[in-house]
């Protein structure tokens, strides 16, 4: 038995064990709750280590492991497979799980004082993690759906962990509802494939050939189902409700990892099961349109939020949009027969998934530290945190730079790859695509610029300036374990931004195994360079990007600068009162607020929002009210809700209360079904 086999199952097992371990404290909660808490998180961390190890081992050695566990239905045992794609996503799960495990113990202490049930949190965390791991390992639709539901249901309990707050219960309900509609859609998607394959195993589904109609139907179901979990617009509404209300380390897992598991599902279903040959470029067009809409929508709403975690949640919507742009490009290029470019889009998408997992976890954990240290969630009440929480502030800044996709950090690399893929639109024959692809790239550019604005706003208002409330003035730095988690993720933000070529060479194994072809131009590269595409027979000088040399350049400039400045002797600075054009010394309440900061953009993009603004004037004071509501509620959900109620009212006509009528209906139904079967 190859060693990889053991490690990934040990990972799942340890996650389950950690779930059980946290229940231990039920027996004697007073005496050692802290110990149990620590034990549970330690097991979770080791589970993460095993997952990351087996994932990366599979990517390096490319040894695919398959096994069947005699478990489940008698005629359908659980099929499990670890290939490159599963390995990559298993690695993401493990990568984020490790910092979460070091972060958790001291973060969760707080809940003990507020009387929440820690064992519940620990139990469902373990179950949630095990569910996610099983989703990426599953090799038949049955196992997949069971793991998917375990993941969805256990995360419902995590969202409603602080259930005394009615807003959290509402968020949990919306999440549960959407998760199930999404789950149903995925099931139908698998149903289409299983119907043609006569089997639930992925191996059988892979070899099935579908008519274009059925392929498109299956893709549509899968896209809606996985897209709902990933948070594409307009199916995203649960995300900004549910992610912020969970405890912060759970938010990190949900935003950083669970969304990626949905991305995994979409990739597995489309590129793995439907297969590259049956892809139609029209799907790519749909994905591109939805992806660019999602990216823009997410970032615009991120600019309008006040709750630090809601900002991050909306930014997750934006990043899913960017991932979908990569996916859409990949589908378009595959569908038009440009396989190398399709692979490039696919790699860009995978790279951004990895990057988003890292920096979004960093930011959610950082936000957790801020909330932990200040007991405030509203950025309008913060300010000046950098002086009070210098280390958290530093790591948070790294996360912010990464997510704003600025060089030389990791977010920039994946966006660069998407831009490069998009700029190869000239290879396509269809005129409409040639025009559409650069347009989506322009949307991506706008999203990037707005994301810089959104995160400057988040960082500038909360970490810089003057503290706006007493809580924030007394903020304290996070504990060692929490800081370690942030530092660990910040290091990855940096490393993934610099060591681009080796990482891509590793990722290249994924299309290699899944589709049977990798990006040819990657193999011959040295670790310094990133040159995604090169036509050997053409005179075109390819675009290239070398992050290590950029870093060297930065280093040289700084060295030179510091030498020049050290020679001069006026390095002292004088601290003085703030000048502000000579007006009276500003106090904390005279600072720009977050809502004021985004006001120009609110005005420019006012068509996107439902804005209610009013000013109440009293004798000596006036109050300003501003609510920005998600437009999709009014435009998408309320009509659906109304029509569901309408249909329900009319369906009640058959509900006469007379047993004979009901029997007649049953009979009619059976006859109809028999007729359908006999067709």
């Amino acid at each position, binding site marked *: 038995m190859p060693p990889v086999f053991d490690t990934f199952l040990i990972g799942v097992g340890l996650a389950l064990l950690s779930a059980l371990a946290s229940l231990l404290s039920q027996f004697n909660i007073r005496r050692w709750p802290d110990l149990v808490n620590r034990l549970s998180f330690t097991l979770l961390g080791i589970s993460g280590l095993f997952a990351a190890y087996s994932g990366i081992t599979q990517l390096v050695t490319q040894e695919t492991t398959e096994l069947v566990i005699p478990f489940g239905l008698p005629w359908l045992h659980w099929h499990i497979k670890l290939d490159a794609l599963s390995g990559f996503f298993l690695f993401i799960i493990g990568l984020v799980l490790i910092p979460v495990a070091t972060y958790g113990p001291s973060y969760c202490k707080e809940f003990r004082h507020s009387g929440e049930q820690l064992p519940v949190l620990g139990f469902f965390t373990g179950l949630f993690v095990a569910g996610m791991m099983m989703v990426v390992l599953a090799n038949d639709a049955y196992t997949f759906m069971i793991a998917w539901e375990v993941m969805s249901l256990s995360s419902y309990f995590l969202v409603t962990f602080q259930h005394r707050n009615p807003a959290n219960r509402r968020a949990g309900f919306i999440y549960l509802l959407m998760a199930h509609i999404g789950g149903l859609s995925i099931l139908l998607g698998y149903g289409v494939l299983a119907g043609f394959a006569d089997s639930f195993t992925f191996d059988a589904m892979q070899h099935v050939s579908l008519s274009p109609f059925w392929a498109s139907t299956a893709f549509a179901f899968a896209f809606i189902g996985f897209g709902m979990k990933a948070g594409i617009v307009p199916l995203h509404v649960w995300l900004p409700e549910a992610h912020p209300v969970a405890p912060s380390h759970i938010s990190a897992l949900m935003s950083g990892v669970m969304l990626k598991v949905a991305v995994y599902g979409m990739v597995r279903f489309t590129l793995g099961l439907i297969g590259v040959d049956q892809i139609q470029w029209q799907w790519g067009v749909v994905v591109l349109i939805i992806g660019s809409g999602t990216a823009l929508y997410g970032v615009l709403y991120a600019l309008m939020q006040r709750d630090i975690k809601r900002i991050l949640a909306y930014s997750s919507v934006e990043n899913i949009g960017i991932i979908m742009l990569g996916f859409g490009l990949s589908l378009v290029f595959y569908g038009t027969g440009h396989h190398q470019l399709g692979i490039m889009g696919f790699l860009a998408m995978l790279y951004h998934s990895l990057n988003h997992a890292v920096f979004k976890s960093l930011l959610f954990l950082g936000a957790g530290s801020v909330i932990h240290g200040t007991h405030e969630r509203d950025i309008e009440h913060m300010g*000046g945190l*950098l002086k009070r929480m210098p280390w958290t502030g530093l790591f948070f*800044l790294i996360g912010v*730079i990464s997510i*704003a996709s*600025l*060089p030389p950090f990791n977010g*920039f690399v994946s966006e*660069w790859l998407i831009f*490069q893929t998009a*700029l190869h639109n*000239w290879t396509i024959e269809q*005129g409409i695509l*040639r*025009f559409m692809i*650069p347009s989506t*790239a*322009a949307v991506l*550019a*706008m999203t*990037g*610029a707005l994301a*810089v604005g959104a995160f*400057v706003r988040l960082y*500038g208002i909360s970490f810089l*300036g003057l503290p706006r409330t007493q809580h924030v003035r007394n903020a304290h730095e996070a504990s060692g374990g929490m800081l370690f988690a942030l530092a660990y993720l910040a290091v990855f933000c940096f490393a993934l931004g610099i060591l681009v070529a080796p990482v891509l060479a590793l990722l290249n194994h994924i299309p290699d195994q899944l589709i049977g072809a990798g990006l040819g131009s990657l193999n011959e590269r040295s670790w310094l*360079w990133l*040159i995604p595409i090169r036509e*050997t*027979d*053409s*005179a075109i*000088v*390819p*675009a*290239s*990007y*070398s992050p290590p040399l*950029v870093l060297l*350049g930065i280093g040289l*400039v*700084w060295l030179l*600068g510091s030498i020049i400045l050290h020679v001069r002797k*006026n390095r*002292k*600075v004088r*601290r003085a*009162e*703030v000048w*502000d*054009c000579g007006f009276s010394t*500003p106090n904390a309440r*005279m*600072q*720009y607020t977050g809502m*004021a*900061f985004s006001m*120009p*953009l609110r005005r*420019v993009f006012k068509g996107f929002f439902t804005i209610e603004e009013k000013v109440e004037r009293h004798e000596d004071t006036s109050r300003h009210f501003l609510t920005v509501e998600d437009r999709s509620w009014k435009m998408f959900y309320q009509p659906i809700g109304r029509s569901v109620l309408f249909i329900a009212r009319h369906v009640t006509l058959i509900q006469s209360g007379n047993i004979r009528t009901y029997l007649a209906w049953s009979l009619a139904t059976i006859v109809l079904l028999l007729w359908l079967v006999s067709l």
Partner: protein
Amino acid sequence: MIAAIASSDILLDSVSGSDLLNPFAWLMAILQAFLFVLLSPLLSGWIHKCKAFLQNRRGAPVLQPYRDLRKLFGKEAIVAETTSIIFRIAPYIVFSSTLLAVAVIPLVATMLPTAAIADIIVLIGFLALGRFFLVLAGLDAGTAFGGMGSSRETMISSMAEPAALMAIFILAMTVHTTNLAAAIELSLQNGFVIRPSFLFALIALLMVAVAETGRIPIDNPSTHLELTMIHEAMLLEYSGRHLALMEWSASLKLMLYGVLISNIFFPWGIATELTVPAILMALLAIILKLFVLAMILALSETVLAKMRVFRAPQYLNLAFFLALLGMISHLVLEVHV
């Protein structure tokens, strides 16, 4: 040179010839960056002089920006008590990221090894990095003016960046690469062809450059009128060497856009080989181009009035739609299927 690229399969050769191993090319690249840094205040001084001339004033001497910089470097730096470390490191980061951005632009020679390290998208990324810290610095002191400047800068840049990239995409789609040196070389080889798409891209990029460098009609660099300023509002708390670095990066950025526009759209004269006459010729050409461009800018700044802040999005939308039109005309008129 193109033949050399086509025939070679080795990585280093494929990246803009064999420049990467050519020490003279590296020397040239470093010299070029220095030249950029040294000449940029001169460009600002020249614009001031032109404007003064157009307004019937005598104006300050062309070398005045150098004197200002020297004065500011000699002065003590005062830092507001309320600020954090971000405020103090921001000038250095802004300056160095602008410097990195100019290092990848061919000023006099296209044989630029740095162009292979970072393409034009990375260049936009460097500028965004600088702006990120500039905007943070504006928020750091906790003053209303700083926040106002930061907020407006964010709005303008988020409208300007897509327009700039769209204009750049037109170029990239024509020459099939985003490597700046290679792109300029290729458009040189194509000879003098008037492309309608380039015309649109040129206008769009000019408009974006005006907005991004904070010139009239979007912003006025010579004003400290509280309610209209954008860039200056963010620099309000800076003094001494910090202010000097910020001002210097602003003029560096102005020159960057000038060189970018003149060398992309009017590449003639730029040296494609590293010989002394070619480089001298190129130097002369670029100075001439910037000389003319500066006069055009001074003229437009004299003729136009600064517009209201909330008119700026319309202006930038216009730039974006011009770039979009350029894209369409490229696809319709210039692509042979």
